[in-house]
Each structure stands twice: as C-alpha cells, then as structure tokens.
C-alpha cells in the first residue's frame, strides 16, 4: 500500500487491528512510515525577512529518510522560523519546500500535516482543558465524525462510534508505548512539563506522519525523561520514521544524530556528520565561541 496515496486523500482510512504492521511497529492506521523518496524533505533557497531582519536567508538542505537529523545554531539563527516556513505557519518570501516529491510551499499547515509532515512546538502546546485521551483522539487523520452531518444525523452515528472504538484502541497502544497510560484521564493542563513533551510527541505520532519536526523536544526535561524520550525517538527511527530535530544541547546532538545542519544568522553554515561538524573551524568560531 502506498502511504503517500493513502494520506494524500481526505477519505477515511480503514483502521483495523488485522492490518497491524508486521514489523511490530505501532498501529497508526497505515502500514507505518512511507518508503518513497530517499530524501522526503527538501528545502531549496528558503528566504524570509521580518521588516529589516532577514531571519532565514537562502537556506537549502535535505533530510534523509529514516534518519535523525539535527538542526542547530545559536539563538536567533532562524531555526524556529525555518520550522514555521516548512510547516506552512508562515509563508516564505522565496524558495521552495518539497515533501515526498511534491511542492508544498505556501500550503496551509493542515494540508501539510495531512501529507505526513508533522511538527511539535518549542513550548509544549497541549490542549489544557481537554484530557490526555481527548488530546490523543484529536490527532488521527480521516475521522468520519469530523463531518458535522455524520456526527449528528441519526443513522450515521453508528459508523462514527465504531471508528471511535478503533481510534481509542490505537490511542491506547501509543499511550502505553510512551508509558503515559496512567495519566490518560488527567486534564492536559495538569501534567508536568516532561509529561507534556511526551504527550505532544505521542499526539504528533498519532497523525500517522512520515517525517516529524521536533522543536526543542528536550527543553526543560529532566535527564532521566530525556533519556526515555531519546529511546522512544530511536525506536521510532528504527521503524522508519524520519526526524528533524532542533536542539541546543550540543552533546545530545553529537551523540544521537547521524547528520547535523548548522544555521547561523539565517544561513546554512555547513552540514555533515557530527564528527565533521565538530572538526569544522567555522562552526567552532561562529557557534561554539571557539572553546570546545
């Protein structure tokens, strides 16, 4: 089954336990992350200025499928703006973003998310007055009951309820995977900072993405939870998910990422393996202040 074809349409997927991924991955309603282009995310000549400040200046890079790629740079280097440009939250002045061979520049965020490119936010933005389960149930694509008519009109409701049961099974599986099933009925606003980060990652995963953009997922997370989060990310990467990760902690990036992209003043300074980055004079000069 081609994942791109399935996620490209708005029609309801048929979630079914029997369709579970044979590789032992999570059942997210598809066969798992797609196996299309070798470089699902390609950014070409991206540019954005706010008033006189050029936040992102001619940035080009690509992210390899199934990799964990780090995006680093000092404060104000344009990392978050790059994320916002890729996910359609803001529109670029120039340049293109290509996802799975399709030009997605300037598309609405929901259209991009539906194609399998899903982000999380720097400050965890859980939906506070909804429970963890409601937060999670929101995410899956192709929910029949999102049509007002189907939810309300007698006769269609049975279909919706049936799908809700399937979704709940899926949600439960993901909650268990992230070890947050014990707080399932808690309001998201009552969670600790670390639990919110887990919830946000779990929720993003439920949209059945191919590529996940994580904006500082470890900010404000204690070391033991950081370890857990990393284990989850590695496990998911082995299942074929692709990650692009913004992070400040250099050690963490160097230890965990296969490739690192360095942004400096809106420009791509360099990219390569962690070893190459660590040896790069320019990076040390610009970013690390020359004293590694």
């Amino acid at each position, binding site marked *: 089954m081609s994942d791109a074809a399935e996620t490209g349409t708005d029609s309801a997927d048929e979630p*079914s*336990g*029997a369709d*579970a991924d044979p590789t*032992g991955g999570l*059942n997210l309603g598809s066969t798992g992350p797609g196996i299309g282009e070798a470089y699902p995310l390609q950014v070409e000549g991206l540019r954005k200025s706010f008033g006189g400040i050029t936040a992102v200046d001619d940035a080009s890079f690509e992210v390899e499928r199934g990799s964990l790629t780090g995006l680093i740079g000092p404060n104000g280097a344009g990392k978050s703006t790059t994320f916002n440009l890729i*996910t359609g*939250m803001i529109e670029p002045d120039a340049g293109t973003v290509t996802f799975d061979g399709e030009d997605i520049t300037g598309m*609405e*965020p*929901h*259209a991009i*998310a*539906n194609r399998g490119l*899903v*982000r999380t*936010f720097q400050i965890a*933005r859980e*939906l*506070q*007055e*909804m*429970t963890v*389960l*409601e937060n999670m*149930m*929101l*995410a899956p*694509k192709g*929910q*029949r*009951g*999102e*049509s*007002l008519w189907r*939810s*309300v009109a007698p006769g269609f*409701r049975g279909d*919706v*309820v049936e*799908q*809700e*049961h399937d979704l*709940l*099974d899926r*949600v*439960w*599986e993901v909650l268990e995977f992230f070890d947050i*099933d014990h707080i*399932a*009925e808690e309001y998201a606003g009552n969670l600790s900072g670390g639990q919110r980060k887990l919830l946000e990652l779990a*929720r*993003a995963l439920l*949209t059945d993405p191919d590529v996940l953009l994580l904006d500082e997922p470890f900010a404000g997370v204690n070391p033991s939870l950081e370890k857990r989060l990393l284990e989850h990310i590695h496990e998911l990467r082995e299942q074929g998910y692709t990650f692009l990760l913004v992070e400040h902690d250099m050690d963490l990036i160097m230890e965990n990422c296969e490739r690192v992209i360095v942004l400096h003043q809106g420009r791509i300074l360099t990219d390569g393996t962690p070893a190459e980055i660590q040896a790069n004079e320019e990076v040390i000069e610009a970013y690390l202040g020359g004293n590694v």
Partner: protein
Amino acid sequence: MSVRDDVAARIPGGDAGLIVAILLGIYAAYVLAGVGLGFSLRGQLNTIATLTFFIAVFALLSLALNLHWGYTGLFNIGIVGFMAVGIYVMALVSKPLYEAGGAAQVGGLGLPIVVGMIAGTVAAALLGLVIALPALRLRADYLAIVTIAMSEIVRFSFLSGDLQQFQVFGERVGFGGGSGLILDYTDPIEGFLSLFGAWDAYLGVVSAFEPLFGNPKPVVDGLVYGVVLLGFVVAYYWLLKRTGESPFGRVLKAIREDEDVANSLGKNTNRFKIKAFMLGCALMGLAGILWYMRSGAVTPNSFRPRITFFVWIALIIGGAGSNTGSVLGGAVFAALLYQGPRTLKNLIDAVLPNAGAPSGFGPAVAPLISNVDPVPFLLYTLDSIRQLQLVFMGVVLVWLMHNRPEGLLGHRKETAAGIPLTTQQAGQSRAAPDGGSEDE
C-alpha cells in the same frame, strides 16, 4: 464552594437532576410569591407561563452561544442581530398577502408559518456565513467587533425607510421601518394544531377550564406555548450534545484551546469554525423567531445589544463549555435576574402597600445623612428594584468572576468523543474481539 458541590453531588441524576431540582425550586418560589400576592388561579398560571417562556428562550439562546463561545471559543456579541434576522425573515415569508385597507402597512408572502421559521433560520445561518468568511480569519477580538457592528447594522437596516416596503414577486412586502411590523398571521399554536387536525380538540380542552376562570384561552395558550418552547430546549440540547460528543466537537474544543495546534495536526480549522458559527447562528435565529413569534408585532428597537449581553450573563452563570450549564444558566438568569426583580417589586408592593417611598434620590438620602435614618433610603431602594435590575446583574457577574469564574456547571467535563473515554472502557474496547488478530 465545596459545600455546594457536596450538595450538588447528593442530588440524584447528576446535572440533569440538578436542573430539575433548581427548576422545581424556582417554580415553587414563584407560586409562593403568587400566593403572597393573593393571585387567583388564573394569575398563578399566567405567572408560570411567562416564567416558562423566559426560562426557555434564555436556555435556547445560551445553548446556541455555548456552541460559539463554550465549545469553539468564538466571541460572538451580535446574538441579537441573528435573532432579529430570524424573526423578520420569518415575518416576511409568513405574513399574509397585502390587502389595501388592512391594519398592516405591508404584507408578506403568505406562506405557512413552518416555512417562515425555516426561512428565518436559514437566513440567520447565511448571515453567519457572510460574517464568518472574512472575520473568522482574524483573531477572536476582531470577530467580537464585527459581530456587534453587524447586530447594529441589522437593527438600523430594519429601521430604515428604504426597507420599509418593497416588492417581491409583485407583492407589497417590507420590514415596516421604525413603526414596526404587525405579525398578522394565524396564531402559531393554531397553525401547528390545525396542521395535525387537532385544533377543535384543543378548543374543547380549553373550554374545560371555563368553570375555573373566565376566558381561559390566552392562559392555556401561554402554558402550551411554554411547553412547546421547553420541547425546543430539549431538541437544542440533544443536537448540541451530539455535536459536542463527536470528533467534530473534539476539533472545536481543540480550536478553543489552541487553533495553531489543531491546524498543525491536520485539521482545516477555518472550515470547522465556519460550520460551527453557522450552526450557532441558525439556532440563534430560530430562538429569535420563537421569542417574538407570538408577540403580535416587532419593532427594530427591541433588538438592542442588551439582549446579547443578557444571553452572555446567562451563559456565564451556567458555565461556558457545558450544555447542561447553559440550560441551567438560562433558567437561573430568567427566573432571578430577568423576571425576579419585577416579581419582587410586586411582592413588596403587596406586603407594604402604604409604605410611602420617597419620590426621589434626594429625599431618600437626606434623612440617612442628617439623622442616620436608613428607612426612607431602604424604601426608596425597594421601590426602585426594577430599575436596579442591571445593577444586580453587574453585582452577580462581579461576584461570579471572583468566586466561581467557571460558572455553576462550567467544569468543561463533557467528553468530546462519540464513546466514553475512560480507562476501563479503553481496556474493554481493546479486549473486544477484532477479527481474531493479536497485537503484540
């Protein structure tokens, strides 16, 4: 506060039980007040009919507003505009054709009342769409500005001479301008009952009341209409509960909490907002029709923004985000803040018939300052209790904001899902046979 929650928890039937209990309390208080006033049976029934009417219309309106504000976070302060469009379009469609020499200056299209009600509801929804398309892309406070401006534009349009009368399909119709519009169609009750051929039977029932008091028809009509309105409250409640407890309602809640997140998870939030806004506007239009349908005539100046704010107060009292809370808020507002001061005033007049309140503020305050005699001031306050209605509303709002900002039932715990989301349920759901597959 916790004491009150304990009391609430002891009432059987949960929130529904609470609503029934509070309604019974309200009615008991009004009947007792009626006894105190020495009302006849006719007077008592009239009071009950009026009370039921206002409880129902405020419950309808706060339910509709709850969809906008409580669920989706849409700041609509133009409620009265949608009500006005509803009743005016309904009148245009259902008024009889113009006849020279009749009491009415303009006619209508002469279609059945039900058609008019549908047309009015649809017109309110379409007005909602027109507003939603540009305004919903903006932040919440801009929607507020646009909606309140719209409600005033609607009122001034109906006031304007240009719309006073015009031709549709060669018939002389119009909105009557500032002098108002006479609703000279058949009484809706007669219309409905004739539709089912039950009108003669109904007249028979009415005449059975003849021995109890003279001319019973208006009283019985009022009671019956009150019951019909309560039926609409149940229908609204059912519709909105179903809307809320679904994936659609879940997206609305997510938009209320953080629209960017909902968008980033692949939900076309603009589309959801427009749908929710239109549905709420339609319900407001229908509520406007039901409120004014039997009033004999409407004038544009009935539709001032204060009605909008009354509905907001009702929703805030009941608790935004809760459908049961909306019904409760509508009932409490109508009984205590809207009708309450009037009844209290009558009661005071009956209890203290010759108290002789001072005629103005000066004579009321002077004794209080000169020889610390509070009696004239108290009498004056009691005498002005109806005028103080808005002050009471303000005091109640301030108190609520300090002590219970979430309202009586505003815990927002109505689950946004088609099935109960509990740990147990999830376990069972998972264990359910699913084609014999074994996950892990």
